[in-house]
């Protein structure tokens, strides 16, 4: 897509979308949203970027390899927090009992492990969607060669 309007608009919009995505991810324990929604928003920004410029520009920002590593990493954060709770001596995915600081309800840094987990989920979802987008687009490219 070589349209100059789209490029300009998306160049302006993308940072805001990403910021919003991060906000939704990080406030997962306080307001509606969370890892999944935020991750989807974040991924949408990257997809928008890649669509309005082109694929190579998109992969320059976030390469296929990096996104697939992040994909595993996000899930590992989730599972790792659960296992950490076990190591700290409570049940799997235990939170307060495992000694994570709960903070003051309503603050950003509250909810103990939940925030970290949400963050992991966000990374996972975003990178998964980006990876999927890349592989679908690349698949399309192959068949045309």
């Amino acid at each position, binding site marked *: 897509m070589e349209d100059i309007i789209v490029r300009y608009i998306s160049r302006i919009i993308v940072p805001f979308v990403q910021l919003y995505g991060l906000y939704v991810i990080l406030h997962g324990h306080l307001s509606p949203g969370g890892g999944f929604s935020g991750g989807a928003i974040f991924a949408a920004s990257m997809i928008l970027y890649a669509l309005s410029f082109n694929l190579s520009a998109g992969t320059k920002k976030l390469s296929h390899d990096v996104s697939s590593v992040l994909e595993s990493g996000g899930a*590992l954060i989730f*599972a790792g927090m*659960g*296992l950490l*709770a*076990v190591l700290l001596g409570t*049940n*799997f*995915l235990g*939170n307060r009992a495992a000694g994570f600081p709960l903070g003051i309800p309503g603050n950003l840094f509250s909810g103990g492990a939940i925030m970290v987990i949400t963050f992991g989920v966000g990374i996972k979802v975003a990178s998964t969607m980006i990876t999927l987008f890349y592989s679908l687009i690349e698949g399309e490219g192959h068949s045309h060669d």
Partner: protein
Amino acid sequence: MSAAAHLPALTVVVPLFFAYLMPLLARWRKSWCAATTLAVLAFTFFSSLYLANRVMSSGPFVYHMGGWAPPWGIEFYVDYLAVFTALTISGIGLPVIVYGIKDLPHELKEGVLGWYYTLYLLLMASMLGMALTNDLFNLFVFVEICAIASCAIISIKESRECVEAAFKYLVLSAVGSGCLLLAIALIYMVTGHLNFTFLAATLPGVMAVYPKNILAALALLMVGLGVKAALFPLHVWLPDAHSSAPSPSSAVLSGLVIKIYAVAMIKLLYKVFPATFAGMAPVMAMLLWMSTLAIIIGSMFAIVQEDIKKMLAYSSIAQIGYVFLGVGLASHNALLGGILHIFNHAMMKAMLFLAAGAFIYATGVRKLSQLKGIGVTMPVPAGAFAIGAMAMVGIPVTNGFWSKWYLALGALDAGKPLFAAVVLVSSLLNGIYYLPIIVNAFFSKPEGAVAKPGRLPAVMTGTLVVLGAGCIIFGIFPSLVLGLVSRATRLLLGL
């Protein structure tokens, strides 16, 4: 609290964790993938062994995720059936992947090997989760993970057949999941619970007020799980999917994956829906007739097949019928036979698929008519195949005999001798399609590609030997598992 207390969760989470680790490992340390997978599966096996031991000595116990008690949190309920299933899954999954270490590079592209281990571990984790969970929605999540992983494990081969079969499987199982989710919605709507224990307590009261909701949910559950478990008229996706997949995938799909849905069905029917209610609605009778059809017609389909893996796939349809026959008959011996058959069939069908895979690996021949004389040139896989086939027919000294024994006995106990006859007729049908293969394999002259098979790696041979020995050992000493199964049955039937 020691780590052992967390084993119920760890059994599921560790494979899940390593499943995600696997792509990273494949990126940096390719050679570690297989070893790690093996270690993880060995861990799950030993942890389920430990759980089994604990359950046998001190009875069922629960594990709360995150320490939240049931109405809020997700609960794992470690009872006899759960540990039995977990043992079956990890016990069969381990040798299959050992076999796969050598077989997979032969069948798959280089780049996707790491992903295969991911999918395999995901599959294992989701099945273990299904076995252990005590929560309806959690069950649904595991069902979905399992469905996607099993589709992916088929389509990873990227041949046209595989992709088509996987697509078909995916669409049908997505519809099945939809039905399942709708059923969960209907149940949650009237009870407000998702935990099995709470549901079982609430449902009888609710049933009087909203019978239609529950009945609709029941029908949806049966269809949703039935399509995934390939219960007879809903089996259509199975032959394509199981016959085109790589051999280890076929083994684990046919041996374990369709069974785990049967286990889920058993849990739901016997634990959640109160027994009186199940007696009132003709659920059991429906299952019974469907399984009868599955047994007879599945065998009939298998008789006319020419492709060895396709034949095995159709035979799975018949064999899942046995499990549901046991469920439907609902007498102690029959249910025992059905549950026992989950294990027995997993073992023999995995072995048969692996043996078929070994034939294909070494000779490239898939047609049954061209496999003449394979027993002479490849004695070990053919021997394993023969043992598996004998077990399918239900010859004594093999484990298949015992499941048929208990099923037939259960049919008589339940006062339905017709179904005992069904079991035996299908044994005969099994004989009709398995015996000529063995006979031709061992007593005909090998020709063509069969005469000069390629060398089979020792690991593959060893796996087949282990599984074959397992069939025989559990045939001679069925009491090794029977204690567990019998307690599971008693608990389910409330005896």
